[in-house]
């Protein structure tokens, strides 16, 4: 399913909301389980409007995430650009997938994003052992149907 109408205010609000959610510590106990919100948003917008949002927008958003998380500049930026690139190359197939398979793709792409960040952290000397860094990708895949439905509805209404 493709959207012919894209609402830029919805784009702006969703980006701000994703950033606020990635800074917020509301459920402190479940911090490691927090979905990779900005990754989801990049996925959604490149998926829905591949002609307008692409690698460069994703890179800029990732750069902002770098500043917010005070990680090394460029790490999240590149990882987000990677998501956008992979969505751009697969979005025509992605559209044909049923929802569970889409969720699997979300998990894969967010997982690649997290692995890239983790790898860069390891190289720069601030990595942590274990596989818990993949949890945001898992929870991200689980919330994908809701994020997608809400943003679709907003786009149709306001676009």
């Amino acid at each position, binding site marked *: 399913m493709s959207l012919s109408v894209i609402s830029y205010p919805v784009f702006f609000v969703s980006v701000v909301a994703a950033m606020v959610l990635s800074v917020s510590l509301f459920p402190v106990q479940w911090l490691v389980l927090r979905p990779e919100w900005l990754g989801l948003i990049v996925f959604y917008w490149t998926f829905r409007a591949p002609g307008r949002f692409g*690698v460069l927008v994703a890179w800029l958003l990732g750069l902002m995430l770098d500043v917010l*998380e005070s990680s090394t500049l*460029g790490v999240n930026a590149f990882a987000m650009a990677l998501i956008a690139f992979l969505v751009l190359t697969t979005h025509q197939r992605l559209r044909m997938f049923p929802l569970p398979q889409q969720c699997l793709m979300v998990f894969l792409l967010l997982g690649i994003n997290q692995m890239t960040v983790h790898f860069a952290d390891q190289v720069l000397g601030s990595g942590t052992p274990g596989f818990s860094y993949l949890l945001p990708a898992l929870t991200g895949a689980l919330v994908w149907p809701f994020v997608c439905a809400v943003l679709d509805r907003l786009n149709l209404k306001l676009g």
Partner: protein
Amino acid sequence: MTVSAALLFQTEGNAIKTIFAQGPWPGMRLMAVALLSLVLMVADARFQRVDDVRSVLGTMLSPIVWLGHLPEAVGEWSDNAFSSREELLAEIDSLRARLLVLERRSSKYATLAADNRALRHLESAASELDESVLVADVIGVTPDPFSHELIINKGARDNVGEGQAIIDADGLMGQVIEVNQLTSRVLLVSDSSHGVPVKVLRSGVRAVLLGTGRKDTLQLMHVPDTADIREGDLLVSSGLGGRFPRGYPVARVASIESRPGAAFSEIEAEPAAGLNTSDLVLVLFQNESPAPPPTTPGDEATKAGGMEQEAEG
């Protein structure tokens, strides 16, 4: 294909464009962006050359940080708004009592400081520099669960600079690592990339105290088995290296494990400051002008002990 085509034709004329058009060469763009990211990473991690970019972006994004920490702020505000009158009165009473205790202590210090200065003058030793402080609120902690950083509500506008020490009532908390216009970021002593030069208050043994990535544990590095350190010893900042001022309590030795055959013993310490709990912190400014020394080491111990007791109440 048929399903999507049917959907496409329902939409407006440019739908075909939106589904196939994806800007020129995403692969080329990815390469360019990867190159740019690599340059940024190297510049940031190895040369600290992009701090200005970070600071500008950080200032721009401060509303988002503020929004992100709104839930906690609201919770705190409602706690305050709905606490009963009796509780507030009790708190005022306890604060008054504490103020009295501290005032008595400070008046005692004034004479001690004068004595100390006179003695130092006699010995013509270099007079120590006093620090002035700025009170700051902790308005957030870093969203990354693996790094230990705080955000405080004082920034370049209040003359806060990189490398300044941050303390709370009980001891050293960390140092400022990034300054924005209105806020600053503080690296805590427990972060795995942080180290403080310390000495044991009792015996004067010097060592470097490293963070471990856990909030309740710090590690004392390269201390020989024979060094005079016991469990419960207070570690104060030694002032060596010039970054941290001398004499602030940093941690208390929690466990010492010496393995036969190993060159150094493994010593773990518990941070003195409330890294998880402190809401108000002090930013230390090391003054240029000579002033009375803050405290002598002996007094520092009693002061730290007293603060801890009172903070419990």
